[in-house]
């Protein structure tokens, strides 16, 4: 809402300010963009992943203040011994102050629940690739009016707080997904950790993410023309990753107010209390400030990587198969040059090697002659 007023006020200032001889009027562009986007509506696809019982559904309900999982069936332990990972989608349309959001939550029940979890992320990566492929086909098609964007914009990964840090399954999952989707790790159910323990766990997780070279979502740096307050907030945000969150479906009464929270015999945990957990920071980041950035990185980075990779494999396959017709109507012309450039490089390498060998042999002969 602050951005809304900001755009309007800028436009107004230039309108009833002093008459400028060079007044053109394109300072209202942000305002026009705002209007059009409100009319079009937004969409966002969020994926949640993690073992059962870490509070994923509760957190999603708390984030979007709805109840998405009214009647779901939880499996018993014996049913989960050899369970495979499923992908379920829920789509809701929510509206706030005239802005419409089509929110899709992709859930991954069964992840990490079976006794043998080797490659349990494969259904998830396959799903993400499928969405990319579908978008790729739509984008390359003839009728591009109503493309449905089902690409996953963000994946919240829930780390259990009961251990000392990341576990092998966490690391393998994040590494498998780091190039396909924006991974945001979260410490779930953090009401079992004292503030000291939270700090230690966060440091540990950040250290392990560094050590193992996992590429999680990085917050973009603040613009240099932002004020100190925003920059301070930005710094705090970056330093408190991964966020330690608590979710709740219940409303409790504390200090005369009704808040979302969890009731314990020793106190009440408030979900939206900044000193209790980082839920507010997560919500701010995910919805209020960085939602569009997440979408941008998905489009510009992950999707483009997928697209380039796809085209590359297709053309190299075609070169080996010598097929004339291509499955996509438009074939970018730059790639054959890339192929020949590679061949030339290879041949150059070979030549250089041969020359070196020749030189060596000549030297040897010279040496023998001298003897």
């Amino acid at each position: 809402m602050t951005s809304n007023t900001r755009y309007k006020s800028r436009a107004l200032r230039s309108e009833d300010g002093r008459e400028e001889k060079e007044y053109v009027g394109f300072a209202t562009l942000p305002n026009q963009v705002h209007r059009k986007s409100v009319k079009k509506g937004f969409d966002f696809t969020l994926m949640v992943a993690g073992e059962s019982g870490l509070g994923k559904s509760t957190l999603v309900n708390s984030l979007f203040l709805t109840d998405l999982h009214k009647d779901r069936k939880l499996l018993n332990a014996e049913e989960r011994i050899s369970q495979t990972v499923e992908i379920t989608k829920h789509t809701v349309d929510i509206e706030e102050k005239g802005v419409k959001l089509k929110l899709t939550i992709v859930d991954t029940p069964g992840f990490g629940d079976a006794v043998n979890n080797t490659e349990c992320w494969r259904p998830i990566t396959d799903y993400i690739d499928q969405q990319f492929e579908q978008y790729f086909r739509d984008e390359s098609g003839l009728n591009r009016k109503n493309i449905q964007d089902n690409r996953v914009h963000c994946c919240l990964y829930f780390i259990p707080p009961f251990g000392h840090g990341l576990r092998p399954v966490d690391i393998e999952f994040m590494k498998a997904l780091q190039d396909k989707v924006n991974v945001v790790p979260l410490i779930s159910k953090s009401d079992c950790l004292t503030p000291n323990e939270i700090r230690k766990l966060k440091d540990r997780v950040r250290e392990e993410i560094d050590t193992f070279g996992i590429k999680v979502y990085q917050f973009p740096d603040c613009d240099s023309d932002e004020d100190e307050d925003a920059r301070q907030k930005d710094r705090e945000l970056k330093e408190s990753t991964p966020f330690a969150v608590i979710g709740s479906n219940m409303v409790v009464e504390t200090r005369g107010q009704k808040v979302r929270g969890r009731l314990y015999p020793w106190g009440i945990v408030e979900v939206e209390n900044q000193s209790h957990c980082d839920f507010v920071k997560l919500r701010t980041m995910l919805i209020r400030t960085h939602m569009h950035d997440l979408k941008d990185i998905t489009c510009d980075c992950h999707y483009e990587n997928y697209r380039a990779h796809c085209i590359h494999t297709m053309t190299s396959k075609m070169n080996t198969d010598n097929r004339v017709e291509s499955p996509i109507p438009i074939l970018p012309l730059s790639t054959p040059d890339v192929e020949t450039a590679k061949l030339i490089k290879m041949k150059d390498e070979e030549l250089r090697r041969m020359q070196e060998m020749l030189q060596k042999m000549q030297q040897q002969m010279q040496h023998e002659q001298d003897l």
Partner: protein
Amino acid sequence: MSSSDVARQLGAHHLSLSGHVGFDSLPDQLVNKSTCQGFCFNILCIGETGIGKSTLMDTLFNTNFENCESSHFEPQVKLRAQTYDLQESNVKLTLTVVNTVGFGDQMNKQDSYQPVVDYIDRQYETYLQEELKIKRSLHNYHDSRLHACLYFISPSGHSLKSLDLLTMKKLDSKVNIIPVIAKADTISKSELHKFKLKIMSELVSNGVQIYQFPLDDETVAKVNTTMNGHLPFAVVGSTEEMMVGNKMVKARQYPWGVVQVENESHCDFVKLREMLICVNMEDLREQTHTRHYELYRRCKLEEIGFRDTDPESKPVSLQQTYETKRTEFLGELQRREEEMRQLFVQRVKEKEAELKDAERGLQGRFEQLKQLHAEERGALEEKRRVLEEEQSSFSKRRAAAQLLQAKNLNANGKKDKDRKNSGFM
């Protein structure tokens, strides 16, 4: 069975005493003896890394066992055992705490239970070996069999994990399992009740037999029955102390409140301590010996082939079985030896035949070569003879020619001489 049953079985009858004899001090004598000897107790803690096993042990026994943090990246499940000597008033306790390391961290957890089962079996095996020895010292023996197994359940709030079910099924016939819900300060009261019910129903429906507190002793039957209804205990462990009210208590401090470990309305820690240590420790030891160990022993001996009754259903003593086994074994050994010997002889014969063949082959080649050699030599001899003949004929011819030449020369000289001579005359 009670003493009157024993008496009836032996054909004895009940007498009443007319005065105080004094054998009512027998339990006291037993107690004195065992206090002098000291007690021993072995606990196994199974749970995921970081779930709070070491902290709970520290809290239960009010000491610091100095356990270092384990990493999540162990390739296999291992067990780490540590023994401590504790003393409370005049009672000495040798406590062994066995912790699992790396449980639940691997990607493939199908074999995670195996190291635990192997460890338990090993302890039973060493005890069995000691029992079967001829010269044994059971009263001095340090019993390393596990008397209780605390299984730490992760507080997901929904149900047991698949790994939990698998492991407990494998262990329920080998050790007394006491499931506990770890880190219970993350579950609210209403959720806790549902969670406990779900866990118990899952255990029952899968036929897992956890340890039930005994109900046959009247003094503790009532409290045990209530406690059986509170299983599994939801515990919180902490070694940090905080000032609450006017005394220092073990607690965990959160921004929203303080969880007191020994407060019954906060968690079931006090119940666990009472049940595990104060009331039922001796019963746990007894159960381990009479139920789990006996089962192991029976299975093991049956495997080897011992039976209590032979095929005609007559009772057979261990000694007889042992003797038959022994003769059987020796017979088997002899047979094997004979077999090996025959095999050896056969192999030697084969090898010999092989070598003979090779020798013959070589001999043939040798003969062949010799013949060739002799032929060539003959040819050479022939050539030499021819050459010599030619040589001798040539030398003869040369001698003849020389003679002729010399004659001619002489003749010429003579003629000259004659001329000369004639000239003079």
